[in-house]
């Protein structure tokens, strides 16, 4: 009987998840040459990816993005969740909804908006420079662009993560707080010894989702490309690389290989973080 309910999901899942994975693996074993057509090449494509400087440059860039942006975003989200949960804010319902709002904004609109604000033509940066006679650094310059993208992604997802943390804090059993009160724990003690341990599972899930998100970075740099064409190359992130290999280069086999290698890296990193996170819990 259970299959009657689960069957439809599993059928579509097989078609849009499992079949493409299998197809990508199949494709990655072939190569199309100008002369001789498409032939089986075994693991040659993987060998090529392994020594491809463009691929590793893009993978390095999203790794840097990951280790800087994800901790900042999750830390901010946690602070706001704890502040709202503490019950010490004026207008806490407004805080909860307003900080969450950017999550409902499409990445395209978020990037266009921030892109306009970053701009020197009619952007805020240009305005502030004019009004105060400053010369703030250009957020779209090569040195700052990755940080500017990090700011957009943080803006989009800080509220979402805050809400996930806050929801988890809401279901912490009241009895734990009462026990802490009897023990004379202060605010920080309650946070350190009760709240954080209670939501560590959710913190871990949010971290893993953020890692997956960082490795997939595509929308924001792709949309900013028209504002900073010289900085954002076609291999700025692994996903942009796979995309341009397919759609400008017609190298479908190699593009599939890049996608698979990046998928494997993601799974390995996510799994390592999960192992570490669960081991610390004991």
């Amino acid at each position, binding site marked *: 009987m*259970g*299959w*009657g*309910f689960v069957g439809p*999901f*599993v059928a*579509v899942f097989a078609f*849009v*998840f499992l079949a*493409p994975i299998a197809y*990508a693996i199949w494709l990655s074993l072939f190569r199309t040459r100008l002369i001789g057509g498409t032939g089986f090449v075994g693991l040659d494509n993987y060998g090529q990816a392994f020594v491809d400087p463009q691929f590793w440059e893009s993978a390095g860039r999203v790794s840097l993005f990951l280790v800087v942006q994800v901790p900042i975003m999750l830390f901010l989200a946690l602070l706001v969740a704890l502040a*709202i949960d*503490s019950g*010490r804010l*004026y207008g806490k319902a407004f805080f909860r*909804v*307003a*900080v*969450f*709002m*950017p*999550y*409902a*904004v499409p990445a*395209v*609109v*978020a990037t*266009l*908006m*921030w892109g*306009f*604000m970053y701009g020197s033509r*009619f*952007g805020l940066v240009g305005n502030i420079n004019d009004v105060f006679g400053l010369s703030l650094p250009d957020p779209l310059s090569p040195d700052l662009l990755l940080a500017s993208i990090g700011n957009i992604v943080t*803006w989009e997802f*800080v509220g979402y993560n805050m809400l996930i943390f806050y*929801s988890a804090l809401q*279901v912490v059993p009241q009895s734990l*707080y009462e026990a*802490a009160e009897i023990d004379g724990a202060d605010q920080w003690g*309650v946070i350190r010894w009760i709240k954080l341990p209670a939501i*560590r*599972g959710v913190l*871990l899930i949010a971290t*893993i989702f953020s890692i*997956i998100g960082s490795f997939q970075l*595509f*929308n924001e740099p*792709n949309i900013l490309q*028209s504002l900073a064409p010289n900085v954002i190359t076609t291999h700025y992130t692994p*996903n942009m690389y796979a*995309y341009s290999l*397919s*759609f400008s280069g017609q190298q*479908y086999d190699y593009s*599939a290989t890049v*996608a698979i290698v990046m*998928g494997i890296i*993601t799974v390995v990193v*996510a799994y390592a973080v999960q192992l570490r996170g669960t081991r610390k819990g004991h």
Partner: protein
Amino acid sequence: MLGAKRPRRSPLLTVLTGIVLIYSLVPLGWLFINATKSQAGLFDSFGLWFTGDFSLFENIGATLAYDDGVFVRWLLNTLLYVVLGAGGATVLATLGGYGLAKFDFPGKRAVFATVIGAVAVPGTALAVPTFLMFSKLGLTNTPWAVIIPSLISPFGLYLMCTYATQAIPNGLMEAARMDGAGELRTFLRVCVPLLAPGIVTVALFTMVATWNNYFLPLIMLKDPDWYPLTLGLNAWNDQAATAGGQAIFHLVITGSLLTILPLLAAFLFLQRYWQSGLATGGVKD
């Protein structure tokens, strides 16, 4: 919250948290303010304040009318993708989550393991192979290429499964069966009402995912007539960068505002449901 005492409100904490609040709201304020400016006003006024002439309604009219009303077409496309894609995803996740939570059947553990494992596979890594597969099947450049992949939400399935486990007492299902109700009837009449907050939560989150989708339609669709709003807005923005293209930044900004309003409204009006759905459902470990 400690014990039965109401904690004292703290102005200092409110101000500090207010920094994040301002950070979250300033870009939205910027968008609204600048949607009230004409194209010329955009360039010669301060970004965070209004200009003398209030052109919001002119801008909305121009956005809807530009290029024979293509914006309206994109809006209708987006609605189509949301209703069929997110609607279908919600139905599949609800059925599947309920089935996994309330029945024992061979292969159940394998389904769980595969779906959870699939969450770790970057969705966009699947996009290129999915495109190639769909193009072999002749589905690219049709609405189906956007709708079918949107039908699967592993997060939605997970959330429904946890929600159903907690929200539906087994005794209630037994009672309905004793009264001679079939499985489908038990599900529809007894269980769906209990699952309502979870269903609203999944519906909202799949709706956001479909409404905001960019990468999938970008690779699947060539014909601007099938674009969703996200692709259309980006095309308008890029238009200024192409040789001989007309710069229409005021329309990009007003169009962006029109694009986000329906989702913001949905989240505001359905708050009660999705907040309780999240609290009871997927986020507990």
